[in-house]
């Protein structure tokens, strides 16, 4: 009998990144709390580092806050949607249990967190090259908008890659490419919907230069994430 893979081996994340369906299938069959804990630790580390880089533009205090809040968005999104995702999978033809669905989603977020963690030096470099928040209003506004767009761009890239990486695994588990895409799109839509709102509630991440540094904004339920990105894009494109 083939011995089960060690559940708390940090090196298994590179196999996860390579997306070896056979190995991943084996891990899903042998569900373990240790593996979930490992993925949680990677999410805390990767997303936390990226969060620190985002907050560094505003200042060290904001870097600490964002390093705490950013992994929280991922963990809360995974756990908040766990029930829904666990139900959607069998409904769409993928015979996965609740815990297995949660593990697959954690795998996806671990990949995203690893990508984001690897981008954090690049983001710090961008921060270093962006006008700091204590300058004139025009420079600050441009810097803030640029940081917002760079952050969204990095997160979008990591999210897309992490989800695409799951397709072969879902295809192996479901036996059909169509089922794999249906489940993936359903999970993606749900996670995006909840994740964007959680990130909006837990704002600020970059830290608005016109407001004091704070862990949570004074009015966390006002406006929406998509409105904010749209206004930033509009502002950046219409600058003379």
């Amino acid at each position, binding site marked *: 009998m083939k011995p089960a893979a060690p559940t708390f081996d940090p090196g298994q994340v*590179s196999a996860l*990144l*390579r*997306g070896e369906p056979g190995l991943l299938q084996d891990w899903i069959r042998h569900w373990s709390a240790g593996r979930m804990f490992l993925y949680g630790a990677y999410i805390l580390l990767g997303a936390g580092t990226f969060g620190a880089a985002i907050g560094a533009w505003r200042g060290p205090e904001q870097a600490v806050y964002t390093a705490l809040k950013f992994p929280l968005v991922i963990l809360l999104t995974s756990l908040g949607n766990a029930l829904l995702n666990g139900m959607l999978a069998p409904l769409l033809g993928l015979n996965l249990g609740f815990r297995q669905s949660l593990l697959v989603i954690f795998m996806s977020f671990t990949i995203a967190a*690893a*990508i984001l*963690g*690897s*981008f*954090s*030096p*690049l983001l*710090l*470099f961008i921060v*270093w*090259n*962006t*006008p*700091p928040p*204590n*300058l004139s209003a025009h*420079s600050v506004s441009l810097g803030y908008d640029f940081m917002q767009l760079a952050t969204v761009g990095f997160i979008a890239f990591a999210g897309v*890659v992490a989800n695409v*990486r799951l397709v072969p695994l879902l295809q192996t588990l479901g036996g059909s490419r169509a089922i794999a895409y249906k489940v993936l799109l359903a999970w993606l839509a749900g996670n995006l919907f909840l994740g964007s709102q959680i990130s909006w509630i837990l704002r600020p991440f970059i830290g608005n230069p016109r407001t004091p540094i704070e862990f949570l904004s004074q009015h966390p339920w006002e406006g929406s994430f998509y409105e904010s990105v749209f206004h930033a894009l509009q502002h950046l494109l219409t600058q003379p």
Partner: protein
Amino acid sequence: MSDYNSPPPGQLPGYTPNPTPAQVPPPIIPGPTPRPVPDASLGSRPEDRAPILGWAGIIDALLREPRRVHYQLRQANAGRLIAALVFIAAACALVYGLVVGTFSGGTQLWAAPLKVAAGLLISGAICLPSLYIFSCLSGSSGRLVEVGGLTAGLLALLTLLLGGFAPVAWVFSQSTQSVAAMGALHLAFWAVAAGFGLRFLRAGFLRTNARSTAGLNVWIVVFLLVSLQMTTALRPILGTADTLLPKSSEKQFFLSHWWQCLDASNHN
């Protein structure tokens, strides 16, 4: 008369037939000399496994037999080779930086070498984590050490070639007063050197069993952008300024900085 002694019907006695075409070896047509199979697995040839000895050996292997470097980077004791590659990169960057500094002289004689060397090494360090993640996503079996070694090899080859361009750059730096012209020249040299360095990296990347190069291509764009932005972040490297590094209020994207340099050059 025996039948054995009589010639076959229709054939004259004493006649020896010409050999059939199949029996004649075809004329040798000179063609291209057979080349080694490019995708033969690393280490399958004895020359791949030849140890790389000394500084000259490392430089020779980088320039002539990159497969040997790729093979050695995969071995357990690759640390010394990687350290040597980083040292070569730093030393050659310092030499090239000195030539860059001779354009302005003064403070730039020590500041430019430090900035060129630090800029290249920091660019490599910033981009290394993402290269490793991209290599994993491409299905590569390369370890972090091997990917780090490939990055060190890229920087070493790039700076070696810059060192080769150094005399040419020095001649021009003594002949012209134009910062824009010298900047364009250094940029052209850097582009050629980076092209060869990235070719080394790509070949090594493919030898780690990567299934796709899409991630590598994205990373190459990121590396080039970071390196180019570094020239603006650490300015002045070529000309002179009041401060050693730009002030917070002077932070710029490299394209807008170049545009300003060209504009200033046109007005002068």
